[in-house]
């Protein structure tokens, strides 16, 4: 578990000329669990999308497992969990069918599924507690269960690195616990995690390092910041408007 799993140097991203990220440097080493924190619109989701190549870099470089991302081909080593299910849900699909798609990175093109592929899908379903829902259409699941389906899909490929985009946003408590358990097992087996979060909830004990993104730049890299002000109150209902306005202090002074 040595060497950088993710290395970002001087990364910049712009949407239509408007800078979203500027001069971002970030290293994630094997076995680390790194949380990317920040307010809505801070650029934290853009950061992980840029790392995965889903948005183009305006400047800078990204290495995955020591290889420049442009030449990186070992995508089975990466498991990606998006914020929500994609738009392609015009036709019903079972939980198992969605999770099986996560196995394709390892399976290779046009190779039939083997017993090992089916076992990996079973194990992934088990680890998020959805084995009994495998034959149900994903459209009938709750938001939290859908999120667990996406995590199982990433786990089915038996990745070494998990990249998660707000995995617990709007997720019920039971699903959050199931998710934290699955993540703890993944980390226990030596996995590396980079996750974007709005709030950490039951994940907090797992986090080894936190970075805070503010206005497109990293303003904190180290221990998880304590919530400040009314955010620290017990029973605080963590709701934010979609437009970023006046939440600069939500993570306290960096």
């Amino acid at each position: 578990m040595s060497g950088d799993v993710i290395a970002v140097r001087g990364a910049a991203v712009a949407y239509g000329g408007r800078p979203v990220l500027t001069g971002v440097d970030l290293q994630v080493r094997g076995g680390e669990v790194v949380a990317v924190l920040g307010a809505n619109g801070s650029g934290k989701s853009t950061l992980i999308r840029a790392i995965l190549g889903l948005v183009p870099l305006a400047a800078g470089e990204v290495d995955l497992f020591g290889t420049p991302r442009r030449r990186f081909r070992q995508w089975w080593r990466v498991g990606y969990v998006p914020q929500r299910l994609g738009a392609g849900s015009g036709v019903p699909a079972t939980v198992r069918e969605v999770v099986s798609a996560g196995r394709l990175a390892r399976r290779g093109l046009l190779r039939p599924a083997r017993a090992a592929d089916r076992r990996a899908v079973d194990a992934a379903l088990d680890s998020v507690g959805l084995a009994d829902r495998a034959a149900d259409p994903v459209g009938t699941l709750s938001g939290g269960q859908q999120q667990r389906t996406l995590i199982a899909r990433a786990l089915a490929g038996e990745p070494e690195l998990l990249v998660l985009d707000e995995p617990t946003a709007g997720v019920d408590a039971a699903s959050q616990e199931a998710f934290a358990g699955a993540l703890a097992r993944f980390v226990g087996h030596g996995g590396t995690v980079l996750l974007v979060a709005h709030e950490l909830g039951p994940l907090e004990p797992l986090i080894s390092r936190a970075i805070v993104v503010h206005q497109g730049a990293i303003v904190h890299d180290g221990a998880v910041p304590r919530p400040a002000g009314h955010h620290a109150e017990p029973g605080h209902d963590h709701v934010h408007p979609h437009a970023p306005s006046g939440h600069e202090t939500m993570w306290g002074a960096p």
Partner: protein
Amino acid sequence: MPGRGGMSLFGYDFMVRALVGALVVGVTAPTLGIYLVQRRLSLIGDGIGHIALTGVGLGLLLHTSPVVTAVIVAALGAAAVELVRERGRASGDVALALLFYGGLAGGVVLVELSDESSSANLMSYLFGSLLSTSREDLVAIAVLSVAVLAVTLLGRPWLFAVCHDEEYARVSGLPVRALNLVLAMGTAVTVTVAMRAVGLLLVSALMVVPVATAQQVTRGFRTTMHAAMAIGLAAAGGGVWLSAQSDTSPGATIVLVAIALFIGVVLAAALGRRLRGGTRVAPAGPEPTEVVLDSVDR
């Protein structure tokens, strides 16, 4: 020929060829259409059909096989649509409209300029001419259909992944652009194959309606695909038989039978839920039945 009724109808060679052609198209078209429906691009097949008419006109004008030129032009059109879809958002919608209606209008003018211009000829491409299916037509339909089925059935896990969540497919290292182009080519070939059976204006119905029917009662993608194939087969067979009984156009009759099956299944499913006590779990996503009418801009 019509009005004789019963099985004796299929004693005629042309009726047998019509039936076989319709059945092959009926079972093939939904296997491709299911990916379009999954992407909420149900009407793309219709647009590719419009573009294919320019290929037909070109073939007639140049005295070559209109089927070959239709495949080529439809494939180019499908590739253009894929390019628009890949990069575009709002403006892409207008680009598609220009492409589709330009293709249809261009086709009509080219057919008129050719030696074989007649409204009957044009109608046969727009609405199908199943009863004039020759032995060679049948061979072409069978070969192209097998090619489409090979792609849609054997490539299902990968095509499913790329249609279900394209970004995830990209991060999985799947060849997303190649898979999208395969799908676009498959759409072009399916449209051309189905041209003989139901005509370019009704092609999309055969790709989409059986899928929409199947997903009223199915729970997974694979089962939806298989059920849609069976429904496509039933609509094609029933449509040919009914058209012979009632002396109506086979293509339009096939489509009407498919729509009748859709309505029947919707009603039966609603009745079934009622009888079971009406404790249906509301789907978390948008209403599945809206898929057929979805606009082309995803």
